[in-house]
């Protein structure tokens, strides 16, 4: 009986497992294998030669290869951290605002917020590159009206990465607001009624009811926001080309430059493996932290 059950389960799982194996696990394993090889992306896999950890030593070494990789890794980490730190609180704030059913125009506000997510990133990037223009950009003109001097935005290594983060937050915030609203709708209204009867004010209700019951939604939002942020590519490729002085050179753009433009497939794979490992560690740490909180 158990044997038959196992066999039928295996047959039913086989198509999905095969697809995942071929399209997800196999490329991942191939990337890991290539990271230990000296291989040009323009040659067959059979031309790859095993060089042990040389690629990893190179990308963490003192030469320009190592320096550029470490800078790209740091830029990606800063970009991701800033994006998540801005997106999560803003999505909750906007979520609370548009969740108020008795406020006129709530649906319109929800639509407007979500509409930024529907605009293709390439269009967002092109528009924002003009908004950020230091000499003729509308942003500096508006700041000028308020008596604030022109800002350098994408033209300074100090502000270029932050300017790209702002662009990303503007585009993504609608999606995460919808997630926050979905989470808010799951919180029973009776909890707020009981808390009101117990004398809890709005701030206490937010702190002791809304935030704890929204934690699962926020965890999901954080994971998605991290994955999205790590994959940033279009604004860098279209506007800054990783500059100035490598200040916006993020890992996806750098891997593309090394692995495809320079055809250094082994080095590019080693960088991709490090990115994958970093992502796995961060996401696992996030889940472990959330589980610990739940246990408490």
């Amino acid at each position, binding site marked *: 009986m158990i044997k038959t059950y196992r066999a039928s389960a295996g047959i039913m799982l086989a198509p999905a497992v095969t697809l995942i194996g071929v399209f997800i696990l196999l490329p991942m394993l191939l990337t890991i294998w290539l990271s230990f090889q000296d291989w*040009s*992306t*323009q*040659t067959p896999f059979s031309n790859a030669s095993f060089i042990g950890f040389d690629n990893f030593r190179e990308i963490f070494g003192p*030469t*320009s*290869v190592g320096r*550029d990789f470490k800078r790209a890794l740091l830029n990606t980490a800063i970009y991701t951290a800033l994006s998540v730190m801005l997106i999560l609180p803003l999505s909750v704030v906007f979520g609370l605002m548009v969740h108020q059913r008795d406020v006129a125009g709530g649906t319109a506000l929800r639509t407007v917020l979500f509409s930024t997510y529907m605009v293709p990133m390439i269009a967002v990037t092109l528009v924002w*590159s003009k908004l950020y*223009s*230091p*000499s*003729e950009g509308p942003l500096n003109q508006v700041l000028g009206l308020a008596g604030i001097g022109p800002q*350098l935005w*994408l*033209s*300074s*290594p100090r502000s270029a990465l932050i300017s790209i983060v702002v662009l990303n937050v503007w585009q993504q915030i609608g999606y995460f607001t919808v997630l926050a609203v979905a989470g808010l709708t799951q919180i029973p209204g009776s909890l707020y009624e009981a808390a009101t009867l117990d004398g809890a004010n709005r701030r206490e209700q937010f702190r002791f009811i809304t935030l704890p019951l929204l934690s699962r939604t926020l965890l999901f939002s954080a994971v998605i926001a991290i994955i999205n942020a790590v994959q940033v590519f279009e604004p860098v*490729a*279209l*506007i*800054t*080309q*990783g*500059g*100035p*002085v*490598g200040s916006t050179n993020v890992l996806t753009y750098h891997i*593309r*430059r090394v692995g*495809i*433009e*320079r*055809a250094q497939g082994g080095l590019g794979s080693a960088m991709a493996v490090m990115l994958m490992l970093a992502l796995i560690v961060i996401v696992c740490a996030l889940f472990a932290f959330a589980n610990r909180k739940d246990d408490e």
Partner: protein
Amino acid sequence: MSLAWISKLALAAGLLASPTVGWAQSVNISYLTHWSPETVALLDAAAKDYAKSNPDVTVTVRAVPFGDLLTTLRSQGGSSDGPTIGGIYDLWLPELARDKLVAPAPDAVAGEVKSAWPAGVVSAASVGATLYGIPNEIDVYALNYNKELFKRAGITAAPKTWSELKDAAQKLTRKDAGQQGFGMINSWAAGVVHPFASLLVSNGGELVKDGKPMLDSPQAGETFQLYEDLIKSGASDPAMATADANTTGPFLDNFVSGKTGMIIMANWWESALKSGMGDKFSNIATAPIPVGPSGDKPHSISYSWMTVVNANAGQAEQKAAWDFLVWLNSPKSGKNGASAMSDILMSMGILPTRTSDIEAHKDKLGSEFLSGYVSVLADAKPFPVVPGGQEFSESLQQTLEALQYGQLSAKDAQANAQADAVSILERAAK
């Protein structure tokens, strides 16, 4: 045999033959370029002209931004469905040839190119003794300056030496009006490296000699120091220097809007200046690169472009591609004895390379803007074409940008640039 039988046999033979004939004669080839839509329209028109006498060959033109050109060639060139023809920068050729992405030119094509183009240009399109592409353009760097801003600053002539350059840059700088004397470029490897290399060769130095980087020379040290001096004096503002993937952006905007007094740039940006400045384009003049303290006379950097054929394309496609390129670059395809390719290049202010094209465009090459470039061509030194050249350029770009933004001193920049170049070129040569 009855008439009905003859008709049936004829129909059957026709049905059998028609697909074979269609497959054998109809060839689709694609041409990948980074040109603007206006220039692509000219290439499309040339392809239509070609189709009149070659109805079975269809040429499709596809354009990508300059920043994506090499990546597109590398990612799609390995397949027979990738672009059949690609316009490439000579610096990329050694590695594209090493990776067998580009096909050697057939003997007949190579023979014609060697007889109709100057030897230096032919060598830039070759690896060893093998010719890989049909050369089309040559670009050279010169000093561009705004005559109106010079007049307002009381400067009567273009600077001939570095001390005159620094002096003029200082006089042209008006911080209150957001005006810089000398414009640098950042966020674009060639835009950063080529002006630096032009100043270096005008100071008697070289980037690479016999495959070895020469950035530790005293001449290179003086060039790094010139950059630091221009930045520290405020005569050059890196925040006005950013470029985007299309090789436009604030550095161009600032020059066309009269906020940059001087810039070192190549001839090809004539079309960008004209479209950005309109009638004010007449304010722009060209002069040789100022000579450094260790230099003997003005020199400049030149580089060339060529069209190559995908080595992985089918035999029929490769043959059709070479035939089309030979026609496009021949004196029969353009106006008044010029090639169609040279007419397209001249529409952008780019210097053609075929000897007969230079003769056919003599009048336009004598214009005030372009004649300044033609005059420095004889003393121009080709940008070194070595394996690892693109990575070397990108690494030097990073160092120069760090110097522009005050993150490195001239001395540290020189030391870093040399160390990086040694490691990159040694690795690429293995």
